[in-house]
């Protein structure tokens, strides 16, 4: 639900822009010094091969003062090796040389020089000192053949930070019907796990735009479309230490709605342990969470503590067995946990002496069984899961859940497959002797969102049912294209006319590649006859390289 703050959208927009400007003036991430720049009449970049090609006069300049020029240049970001081809020259201070082709190692101090007329190769350094004869290694002089029109980015100037990122100024994303230009684009190719982290909430669409980067940090602006608030602008700072640790902090400012501040941190502690921390702040308050996971062979455990600014805190310590064989390839697993919920002033508002229950301990067991994917008649496959849980509280209260899933796959051909699924969950919130106190019959009918009375709600005394059936038809005519049509029906309790999940949903997804270097994934969903509306459409949209 969007909350109006009494701030006009234009002010919200101004605030979002102000955040961006402030971030630009005071970058949190120290931008790493560029090690090389590549200029040319045209500079094209291929994202999957991490290759840059400069043509129509290419100039490579290193941070140490070495400059090289040639008709064309190829720079491999995977190996930090540049090949300058045709009328190649290089200079460093007063030293200079000319050759048919030159190879410059950006990250190491090596230069290879090819003189085709004499059939010789010599090796020197960035300082272009005395050259030594070298063996001819043709692979060092490799210059791949590419079609420039298939490039991901077209530019004229690239600034390279080895093992981190490359900034293009300007940048255009070429398509067969023209290019989409931006003044500047930062492409980060560090693979540290933290660069994939986020402290932003999920969004229907999220396109990051890198502002500053280094091998260990990235500051990025995110253009987002969020369910509810709609368009939003967010700023996120990531600090990364390889795959072992990261910290991400963000500020999310929807144009209509309230801002959300987020933090997410992670640290791997040896081969068995990890520590995690995250926090979210809104106008409603702050939620902070810390956790710790441990692996004991294939078994494991975790500890979590969550605290809100409203005074609610929860603690949970859990242990799980590994998946153990049952019969016929099925496996079982048991999980046990213990913890407490705590709230200043008491948790159980329904009781006259609720202050006695400021902290309520609980413990639980969760037993689950999973079958393998097995072949069934008509060439189909089936897999199922069953799950049963009970949580006991240090008060006459327990909560039971029983759930099951079944998933059927029927391939009709290599390109057409039908899926059918069933999910059911039954839960009971049981207060022995005091059930009516915690689940009283409403004195007036519950109203659904369009004002319709929901008389059936009076039958709800703590037992819920969630059941859904879905049928998906998937067609994949080629590697780049996929169509999927999904119909979902739910039969829950309580559920009625906008209260609970929609009873019918139809969804269509198309993934296709309209241009060689750009793919689209577009989804459209309809909830039918729910909450007094004929249908409620929703879009999902993603752009892929």
């Amino acid at each position, binding site marked *: 639900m969007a909350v109006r703050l009494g701030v006009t959208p234009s002010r919200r927009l101004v605030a979002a822009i102000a955040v961006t400007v402030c971030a630009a003036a005071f970058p949190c991430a120290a931008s790493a010094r560029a090690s090389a720049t590549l200029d040319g009449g045209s500079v094209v970049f*291929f*994202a*999957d*091969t991490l*290759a840059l*090609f400069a*043509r129509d006069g290419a100039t490579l300049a290193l941070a140490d003062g070495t400059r090289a020029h*040639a*008709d064309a240049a*190829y720079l491999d970001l*995977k190996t930090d090796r540049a*090949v300058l*081809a*045709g*009328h190649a020259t290089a200079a460093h201070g007063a030293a200079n040389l000319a050759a*048919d*082709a030159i190879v410059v190692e950006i990250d190491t101090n090596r230069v290879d020089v090819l003189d*085709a007329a004499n*059939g010789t190769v010599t090796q020197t350094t960035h300082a272009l000192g005395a050259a030594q004869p070298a063996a*001819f290694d*043709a*692979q060092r*002089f*490799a*210059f*791949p053949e*590419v079609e420039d029109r*298939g490039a991901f980015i077209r530019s004229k100037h690239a600034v390279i930070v080895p093992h981190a990122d490359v900034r293009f100024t300007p940048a255009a994303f070429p398509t067969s019907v023209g290019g989409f230009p931006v003044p500047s684009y930062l492409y*980060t*190719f560090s*693979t540290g*796990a933290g*660069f994939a982290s986020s402290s932003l909430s*999920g969004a229907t669409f999220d396109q990051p735009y890198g502002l500053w980067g280094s091998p260990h940090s990235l500051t990025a602006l995110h253009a987002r479309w969020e369910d509810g608030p709609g368009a939003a602008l967010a700023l996120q700072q990531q600090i990364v230490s390889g*795959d072992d640790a990261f910290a991400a902090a963000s500020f999310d400012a929807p144009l209509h709605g309230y801002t959300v501040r987020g933090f*997410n941190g992670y640290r*791997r502690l040896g081969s068995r*342990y*990890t520590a995690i921390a995250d926090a979210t702040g809104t106008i409603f308050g702050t939620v902070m969470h810390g956790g710790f*996971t441990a*692996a004991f062979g294939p078994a*494991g455990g*975790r500890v979590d503590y969550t605290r809100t600014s409203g005074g609610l805190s929860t603690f949970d310590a859990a242990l799980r067995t590994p998946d153990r064989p049952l019969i016929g390839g099925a*496996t079982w697993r048991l*999980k046990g946990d213990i913890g407490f919920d705590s709230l200043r002033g008491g948790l159980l508002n329904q009781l006259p002496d609720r202050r006695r229950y400021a902290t309520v301990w609980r413990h639980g067991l969760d037993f689950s069984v*999973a079958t393998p*994917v097995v072949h069934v008649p008509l060439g189909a*496959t089936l*897999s199922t*899961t069953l799950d049963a849980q009970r949580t006991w509280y240090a008060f006459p209260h327990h909560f039971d859940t029983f759930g099951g899933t079944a*998933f059927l796959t029927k391939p009709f051909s290599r390109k057409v497959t039908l899926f059918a699924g069933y*999910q059911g969950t039954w839960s009971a919130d049981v207060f022995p002797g005091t059930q009516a106190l915690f689940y009283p019959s409403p004195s007036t009918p519950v109203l659904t969102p369009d004002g319709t009375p929901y008389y059936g709600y009076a039958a709800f005394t703590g037992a819920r049912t969630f059941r*859904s059936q879905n049928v*998906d038809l*998937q067609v*994949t005519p080629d*590697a780049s294209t996929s169509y999927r049509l999904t119909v979902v029906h739910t039969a829950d309790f309580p559920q009625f006319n906008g209260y609970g999940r929609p009873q019918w949903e139809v969804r269509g997804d198309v993934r296709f*590649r309209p241009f060689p270097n750009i793919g689209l994934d577009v989804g459209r969903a309809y909830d039918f006859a729910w909450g007094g509306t004929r249908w409620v459409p929703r879009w999902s949209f993603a752009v*892929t*390289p």
Partner: protein
Amino acid sequence: MTYALLLALAAAASFRIVPLACTGDRLAVAGAGVLRLADGVSCAAFVPGRATAIALDADGRATPQKLTQDALPAAKIPRTAFLLAPAAEQNVDESQLVTSTIDVFVPPRTPPGDDVYISTERSGWSPSEVRMDRVDARHFRLTLKLHRGARVAFRVTRGSFGNTERDAARALPPAHVALGEPDAHVTVNVAAWADID
């Protein structure tokens, strides 16, 4: 087989090359070596860094040709034609698109209605970058068209960072790699998800 016979056989074919440089009657071929130009052939016919085709005469001298699909790779040029020792490895044709298949097997307790995505550096690690096609309840597949020589790092998610894959110790695993080689294939067994267990 004699050098002359090798060259005679090569004379019947054209070779796809990327010129590095051309000076006088010498043509440097990327990833290969240095050839001699045939009499009367000018260096103006070659643009450094742009793919072209050549034919060899009986003396191993190069003449520019129209680039056709059936041109042989530079690696097929006989060693005897080179003035400077060639490499055995061929120059990579990165204009060629190859298919690379990713198969992902998810753990039994993966919610059956959830989609599975791959996330790569190409999108700034968007967690819902490319939706995978479902093969069955616990098997997903995606075929990528990559440039030959590509090396794409990726991770597996269920659509957001909060449900990214974890290893058996519930730690973030290193990125997987899909290679741009003909019929390349990588299989990923997801041990756990960040939001489950």
